[in-house]
């Protein structure tokens, strides 16, 4: 099986790897690039744990082949904080206890960040619909939704 040379930009850094064309972007990020923050939940696009942005579009990295990322910009959870300074969404997830086991959290954070980039002042309904493709079996979602709303308010510099 001949491998394909893939050149991408991940979180702003130029990254190269050799991918079997059957490998997903998720596999490539975790196994070739060493970025294990992106999680595999279902592997079939149902749970959103593997959410990343490709060219600024929110996708399930389990439903993208690594070779399809050639020449593309990919942003993962590892690019979310500014060094040790957590992103407001990350801080609010901690403050609101919007996680227990934490496995779904990277996917929720990446998806929520994509939402707030296009809709800085979302309604609760909008948040719930946008995040419908992210499954969490611990929290019951309420704390996650509150954390996203609160982070949005902070990012708009309003008190929530």
């Amino acid at each position, binding site marked *: *099986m001949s491998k394909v040379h893939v050149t991408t930009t991940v979180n702003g850094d130029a990254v190269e790897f050799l991918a079997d*064309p059957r490998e997903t972007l998720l596999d490539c990020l975790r196994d070739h690039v060493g970025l294990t923050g992106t999680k595999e939940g279902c592997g079939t*696009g149902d749970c*959103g744990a593997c959410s990343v942005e490709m060219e600024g579009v929110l996708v399930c990295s389990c*439903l993208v082949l690594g070779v*399809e990322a050639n020449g593309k910009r990919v942003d993962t959870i590892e690019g979310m904080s500014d060094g040790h300074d957590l992103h407001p969404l990350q801080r609010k997830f901690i403050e609101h206890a919007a996680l227990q086991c934490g496995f779904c959290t990277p996917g929720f954070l990446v*998806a929520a960040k994509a939402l707030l980039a296009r809709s800085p002042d979302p309604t609760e309904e909008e948040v719930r*619909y*946008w995040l419908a*493709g992210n499954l969490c079996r611990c929290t019951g979602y309420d704390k996650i939704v509150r954390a996203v709303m609160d982070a949005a308010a902070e990012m708009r510099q309003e008190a929530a």
Partner: protein
Amino acid sequence: MRYHTPTTFAEAAGIAAAAQGVTRFLAGGTDVLVQMRAGMVLPDDLIDLKKIDGVDRIDPTPEGGWRIGVAVPGIALGAHEALRADWPGVVEGMELVGSTQIQGRATLVGNLCNGSPAADSVPGLVAAGAMAEITGPDGGRVVPVADIPAGPGRTTLQPGEVISALLLPPRGTAGGDAYLRFIPRTEMDIAVVGCAVNLRCDGDTVTEASVVLGAVAPTVVSVPAASAAIIGTALDDTALGTLAEAASAACRPIDDKRGTIAFRTEVAGVLAKRAARIAHARAKGENA
């Protein structure tokens, strides 16, 4: 598995025609990758169509309709205001497919070629009279989208043939379309019944109509009797009642945990009425 990135549809069709084993075309990949992972489909040749010029574009046609590239994801359809203004039913059907993440990749053509009887975007395309532009090893042809589905998981495309674009006709004046589906929750589910209605009005009176059902037969079904029930009427209660009866009568659904035959048949009529009302309001320029 060989991964191909042709730069023209003729080249893509040539690769598919010459391939000996299992071949799949790759657009958004939200069905193909799931099938690969499940081991249901293990392609020997995977032909990625996204390097072909124009596949990510939505272009107006000289006739006043739209040409939609095969790799345009749902999120791009939804963001295209002029397309949504012309064909809101087509766009809202596609937008019901999967999650935000799926919308970032999934395409109309993929939804069509996956061959699910419950595909949410297909009834709207059929009701709109959309055409599929096909490129094959021996040239091209253009066929109604309605002629593509052949049964669950099957299409009428021949070996080596690939859909190279979808064509929506000009909207024209006083037209409106709508798509509704029933699912037991609010998001992230497969249609138990889907119904698209496309119509044109003269004042309040319906002059043209097309009623198309999904998830109630092995393929999407057009229901001419349902269309006839509302043509020449102002969608009064009698006409809507006849429409619902005709829609229900056209159902040949499966019976499963997601919906019994009786339930799907009943709901088809209800959705037909509701979708017709929305399409009618849109045709008259009302917000609906």
